[in-house]
Every structure is written in C-alpha cells, then in structure tokens.
C-alpha cells in the first residue's frame, strides 16, 4: 500500500506549475524585468545539487572527476545568485511620488 515517492514529487511539480502560472499573471507589467531577473536568481537553487556532487569526493581524492563538475557547477550557480543583488538594485529604484524629494 506504500505510494512511490515519485508520485508525490510529481504532484508537487504539477501544483508548482499552477502556482507559477498564477504568480506571473499577478505580477504588474512594470515589474516584468525584475520578474525575469528574480526567476533567474531563484533557479540558482541548483547549487544544492552542485554542493552534493562536490562533496561526494573522499578525503583522499577531493577532486575526483565527478566532484570537479560539482565544483564548476558551484561557481556557476554562485555567480547566478548575484541575480538577487541585481534585482535588489532594480527594485530599489522603484519609488512612489512622495519619496521623490528625498
């Protein structure tokens, strides 16, 4: 009677697709550029896989062929995390009228 965890993951996947669908429609068009940069930034969560791969080496061989790919992926994903800062810079610029004279 045990259900395969894959099915749960599939459910999570499908439900998240719906959320993505709705979330975008609710974003105001003037923030579409930050939207692109923030969705890009959150995809750097792939770093989770990169860390696992990099740490898979043993104490003797830190840089096995597979962990090297992990380390490279860590750098790439970490650069991408900078996307949050880009977004922050952009969002910081959106101001209402009253703040104008600050």
């Amino acid at each position, binding site marked *: 009677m045990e259900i395969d965890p894959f099915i749960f993951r599939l459910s999570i996947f499908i439900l998240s697709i719906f959320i993505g669908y709705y979330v975008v429609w609710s974003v105001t068009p003037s923030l579409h550029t930050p*939207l692109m940069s923030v969705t*890009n930034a959150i995809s750097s969560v792939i770093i989770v896989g*990169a860390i696992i791969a990099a740490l898979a080496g043993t104490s003797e061989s830190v840089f096995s062929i597979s962990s090297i790919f992990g380390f490279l992926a860590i750098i790439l994903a970490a650069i991408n995390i900078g996307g949050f800062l880009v977004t922050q810079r952009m969002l910081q610029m959106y101001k209402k009228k009253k703040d*104008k004279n600050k």
Partner: protein
Amino acid sequence: MISANLSAIFYLISGVLFILALRGLSSPDTSRQGNYFGIAGMIIAIVVTFLSIGNLSSSLVYVIIFLLIGGAIGAFIAFRIPMTAMPELVAGFHSLVGLAAVFVAIAAFLNPEAFNLGIVGRIKLASLVEMSIGAAVGAITFSGSIIAFLKLRGIMSGSPITFSGQHLLNLLLGIGVFVLIFYLCKTQSVNVFWTVIIISFLVGVLLIIPIGGADMPVVISMLNSYSGWAAAGIGFTLENTALIITGALVGSSGAILSYIMCKAMNRSFISVILGGFGADSASDNTKEKKDQKPVKSGNAEDAAFLMKNASSVIIVPGYGMAVAQAQHALREMVDKLKKNDIKVTYAIHPVAGRMPGHMNVLLAEANVPYDEVFELEDINNDFANSDVAFVIGANDVTNPVAKTDPKSPIFGMPVLDVEKCKSVLFVKRSLSPGYAGIDNELFYKDNTLMLFADAKKMTEDIVKNLD
C-alpha cells in the same frame, strides 16, 4: 547532520519562500520584501544541504571557497552592470544555470552513489531518464542563452540566420536526442550520455540563430522557462523538493511571460520560435514613401515652446530612449515642465523597448516615481484630452497601421493613440522605421513635428530652452 525528514521540510520552506518572492512582485511596494524572501530561501537551501550531508569530507573547505569565488563574481557583476544591459545580463545568467544543470547531471551520472541513484552502469532507470532530460534541456538553455547574449550584446549580428531545411534539421536533431536517451537507458553508456549533451548544445544554437535580435526578449523568457525545466529534471534526480518547486515555478512562469509578450505584440509564439522575423523588412516600400511625402521637422526651441504652452504632456518612451540613455535628461525636462504647472505623465506600451518592463526600469533608474507611469490600457483614453505627446525613441508602439491595415505585420497589436493629441513630437534620428521595419504614417501628419537628433542630445537641448 540532520535527518532526511527535517531537511525535506526545510527544502519545502525554501520553495515556499521562492513562491513568496515572486508573489511580492505584484506591486512595487512589496517587491523588495519579496526579494528578501528569495534570498532567505536560497540561504536556507544551501545551509540545509551542508547540514544534511553526513561525512563533511575535507572537500568542504573547497566547496566554501568556490562558493565565495562565485558569489564574489556574481556580486561584482551585479553592482557594476548598467541598467541598460539588463537584457544581455539575464541571458548570460540563464546560460550559467543551464550549464550548472548539465554539470550536476554529469556528476550524478559519473558518481551515482553520491546521490543514492544506484551504481555506475546500473543507475536507476527513472533517475537516468530524469538526469538526461535535465542535462539535455540544460545544454539547450546554455548554448541558446549564449547566442541570445551575443546577439543582445551586439557581438553577433542581430539579424536572423536562416538556411533551407533548418526546421527539418532541428526536428531531426530533437528526435535524435530522444532516441539517444532511450538508447542510453538500455546501455548506460557514457559515450551516449556525452553525445546527448553535445547534440543538445547544437540544438540550442540552431534554435536561436534564426530568431531576430529584436525577438530576443521572447527568447530570453523562453530560455528562462527551459532553465526551470532543466532544474526540475535535476530536482527529480536528486529527489529535492526545493529544486522541483523552483524548477516548475520558473518553467511555467517563463512560459507564461513569453506568451504575454507575444500577445502584446499580437504575434504567435510559433512564429517567433520559427524565426526569420525582421529579415525581409519592407524597407524598399518604406524608402519610396519617405521621399515622396513632406515632413515637418523642428528643433529644440520649437519643442520647448510647444510644451511650455501646453497644459498636459504625455511622454511615450521607446527603444531609442534606452539606446541614447536619455532617461535622466528626460526626467530633468519633466521636472522643468512640472515647475511650469504642466501635467506630465508617462505612457508605457507593454513591448516598448527590447524587454518587457524595459522602460519602467529605466524610468525608475532616473527617479521617475512609478505612480506617474501608466500602462497602455490605463492611459490610452487620455491622449484625446492632452496637448502634446512627446514620443522619444518609440516608433512601432505608436504606429496606427496596427489598427488600420490588416496586411501589416503588426496588425492587431494594441498601440498608443498618440495621434489623438493636439500635437505630437517625435524624437528620433531619422525617418527610418523601428524594429518591425514598417513605415509610420504619423511622421507625415500635420500635427506632427519631427525632432531629428539623438534622443539624449535633443532632450538636453530642450531642457536648456525651457529655462
């Protein structure tokens, strides 16, 4: 080391934080908070990953070093990048995610034990399928984004590269990837795996080269979507909830965003993807017309005079403002006008510029408060009651042919009704058409005054004349 259950809960939390990050963007007020949610989600995911790995081997130091190196590079780019370079930055960042997905898939394929996926040569079937899909989509994202980056950066020409049989070739290569993945499942061969990745790189290149430079925004968003699906594929392989949620979120949101863009341009998604748009522009036709009709052109003084005597002005910025970096000068001009008690608002077309929301970011950069900036549907009725429309570097988004000529490539695209204003000022360098390559009849209207110059220079001159 924390238990698998606890880390699963934390990954869920980080997924939810990412959802909240996107939700925040529903208004500028909540958007900054949303971004913090995103950062928090990322930190949680990273910390939990460290905690959930039992034998923190001596590699840990290196991991942290590489993390910091990457982070430093990212931060450096983030602080140095000019706002106008946003489109290519996003494209460049996508390529990173794509390549990272490929690398993680390779690592998993070479060392499946580390991920609990079986042993080399006997990887679980489901995991194998998931990781090869992740790798293939990741590779397409990577090479496609590189091409998009090169086109946007101007390193590669923006014009579509087409050849006969292109779509057939793409189709065959696509089918090839599927067949190879199937074959991979049977043989578990390393070589087949590498071949899948290499062909996918090729597909990525071939998919993007036929698409014209100006269609790149749709492409970026589509690649964003791809990078999400790749991440989700890896998420299934690693059985990681945060990755699955994020991947699905990014995948579907990117797809919807490209759909929204295509709709705002009144073009079908398929026609964008098949490419070739902007190659065979109707420029002969255009040239002909240009020579025939008379045009009223003026200088900064005329423009300043007209606006000083207006009671309401609507600014319509377009791609040319971005090119000329005229937003700061524009802001100065508007300030001067407002001091003279003239009502000034901004009208933004959904696809003005070369990226959705492009104009909004630039205006925000120039400190224009966002409550003076209006979307097309909110301001289009106001043109009829306004005195001057100041069109700066915009063209297609004002072209009335979209309303009148069913044969025009932009027919059906909603446009800003600038012609309803008492007078229209057009700041651009020449009579040449915009991205869609079609002539704009407004240039020849009686109530239009053309201001031929670079947008920034002209605006600065107007500012001087307003004193």
